């Protein structure tokens, strides 16, 4: 048995012990698991995983039980607990999807054929949050998904899955929040279809424990003239990989905002892909990273402009602030442009706190620690400003403020 087979083989028992499923689902799971066994865990010689070593995940024996049930707490209407979906009251205009929706859409956007973690997630599909936003519905209240996990031995692996089908000309806000204690593995996949003219704002706030492994995949398919925005806020986790991918149609506007903050031994990898398939698409991408201690991070921004996607307008920016000498960022734009009448710009920066700005603040009486906090916070400010949910914005401001306060001491 090869090392890879040993590692994937750990999952075999769990896979075979899953409760029975309907034939179509069983078929999907079987085929995904088969693919997972073939692909194995990715190795760092694969370009997509060059700077992210998932060996710690591959080596760990995880439990896959749904240990506890918990109903939704407070104002969080949709809750995952250890990957188990707990449905509660949904805002008006939002309904649970039907089994037909599942059959028609699940796995059609986030393909498991080339991504072992999507394959693993699909192999363990059990409770999927399938939501349908009614055609033309304007849903003011954000639909929230809260992911939690119980601390267990062995640690638990959860494979939560969301499928959102936003009807034509509908408008909605989706918020995924990840937070728990201890060591565990979250392997989440979200598929979103934004229908023609739909406006979808998606937020992912990843505040996992600093011992947790987190793989979070977002695959959005945005229809003609749709407006899709992703906000990826990555604060926690020991080993984190976020994929945020969006495929655009004609006249689609896509915005990808990202903020990643890592300290200590944290590793956070953001891979994004913006796929312009049709003409007149617009995309704006701004990802910012703040790294301290021995933290390492990756930003890989792929932009594809296909042959038919004339008049595409695409802008990508990645900015990084390194607060310590030991922090490392690997940033790489990846532009694949096959059309000839397009505008695509990209830029990446890596820097430290501006010594002149620091002195300027100090010269006005502001202490060095506070001045550092202020400048660090200011660096993240424009991403926080793009958050349109007031409560979430307040929360982020508070969290960021505390975060930058503690390391200065």
């Amino acid at each position, binding site marked *: 048995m090869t090392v890879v087979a040993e590692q994937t083989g750990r999952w075999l028992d769990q896979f075979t012990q899953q409760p029975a499923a309907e034939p179509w689902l069983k078929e999907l799971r079987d085929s995904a698991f088969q693919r997972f066994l073939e692909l194995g865990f990715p190795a760092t010689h694969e370009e997509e995983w060059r700077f992210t070593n998932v060996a710690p995940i591959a080596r760990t024996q995880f439990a896959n039980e749904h240990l506890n049930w918990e109903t939704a707490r407070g104002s969080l209407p949709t809750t995952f607990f250890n990957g188990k979906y707990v449905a509660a009251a949904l805002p008006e205009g939002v309904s649970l999807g039907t089994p037909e929706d599942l059959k028609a859409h699940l796995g059609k956007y986030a393909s498991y054929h080339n991504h072992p973690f999507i394959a693993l997630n699909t192999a363990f599909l059990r409770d999927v949050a399938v939501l349908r936003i009614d055609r033309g519905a304007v849903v003011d209240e954000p639909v929230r998904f809260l992911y939690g996990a119980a601390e267990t031995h062995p640690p638990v692996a959860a494979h939560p899955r969301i499928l959102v089908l936003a009807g034509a000309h509908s408008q909605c806000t989706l918020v995924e929040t990840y937070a728990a204690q201890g060591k565990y593995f979250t392997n989440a996949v979200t598929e979103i279809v934004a229908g023609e003219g739909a406006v979808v704002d998606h937020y992912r706030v990843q505040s996992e424990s600093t011992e947790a492994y987190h793989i979070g995949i977002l695959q959005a398919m945005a229809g003609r003239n749709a407006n899709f925005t992703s906000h990826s806020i990555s604060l926690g986790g020991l080993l984190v990989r976020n994929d945020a991918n969006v495929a655009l149609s004609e006249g689609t506007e896509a915005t990808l905002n990202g903020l990643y903050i890592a300290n200590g031994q944290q590793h956070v990898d953001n891979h994004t892909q913006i796929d312009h398939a049709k003409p007149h698409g617009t995309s704006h991408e701004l990802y910012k990273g703040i790294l301290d201690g021995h933290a390492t991070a990756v930003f890989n921004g792929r932009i594809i402009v296909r042959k038919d996607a004339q008049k595409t307008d695409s802008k990508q920016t990645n900015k990084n602030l390194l607060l310590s000498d030991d922090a490392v960022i690997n940033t790489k734009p990846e532009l694949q442009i096959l059309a000839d009448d397009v505008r695509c710009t990209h830029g990446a920066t890596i820097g430290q706190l*501006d010594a002149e*700005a620091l002195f300027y603040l*100090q*010269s*006005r*009486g502001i202490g*060095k620690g506070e001045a550092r906090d202020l*400048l660090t916070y200011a*660096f*993240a400010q424009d991403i926080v400003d793009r958050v349109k949910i007031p409560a979430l914005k307040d929360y982020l401001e508070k969290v960021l403020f505390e975060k930058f306060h503690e390391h200065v001491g």
Partner: protein
Amino acid sequence: MALLEIKDLHARVGERGILNGIDLTVNAGEVHAIMGPNGSGKSTLAQVLAGRELYQVTAGEVLYNGKDLLEMAPEERAQEGIFLAFQYPVEIPGVSNMYFLKAAVNAVRKQRGLAELDAMDFLNLVQEKMKLMEMDQTLLNRPVNTGFSGGEKKRNEIFQMAVLEPRLAILDETDSGLDIDALRTVAGGVNALRGPERAMIVVTHYQRLLNYIVPDYVHVLSQGRIVKSGGKELALQLEESGYAGLGIEDVEEAVGRI
């Protein structure tokens, strides 16, 4: 006791000596102009007094209110009442002018044992000073100096000074880049702050500013030393005969040599 006593101050950046023995005494209520050609060490002196770490002090001492100034961190100096109006005010995107100034005011108040100002009191305080500087109130909500014109930046410096009410204000080439109207406004703001408790050091290359801010003493700096001191008439003499009249070489930028 003098407010500021500089004795035989030497400073360098890297291997290059810039201040080569400065002696200067400034008493409360006095305005001292420091003039000198480009590269004479004027701005370095201003920055060293404010505590810029870029410059290494290699010899000499500076007493401020009898205390060893060089031992103090930049923020402590500010809290003790030293203010530097920057030659090139720094842009800080993401921090609003309002937040910045409130943090500064409260840091200084805290050190003086005063209660922190709340938003309302602060607003009252700044509105009055903004009027003095003929500043648009929208500047408060904009990020510090970001996208400000040169004149707006300089006004913002003096506005900050007016709000912070320092005991020793150091103005570093505050006149550079200002048109005559802006210069008058800036000078007016500075003059409004003159008083028996407050001293000022006005660093400038040109005599023009000193028509509006009339100094008690003028010092001419060359190669890191004060080579001549006098009253305000010394500035006029410089205007007449240039630095060359004092036997000082002033290498102007090539574009300026007309």
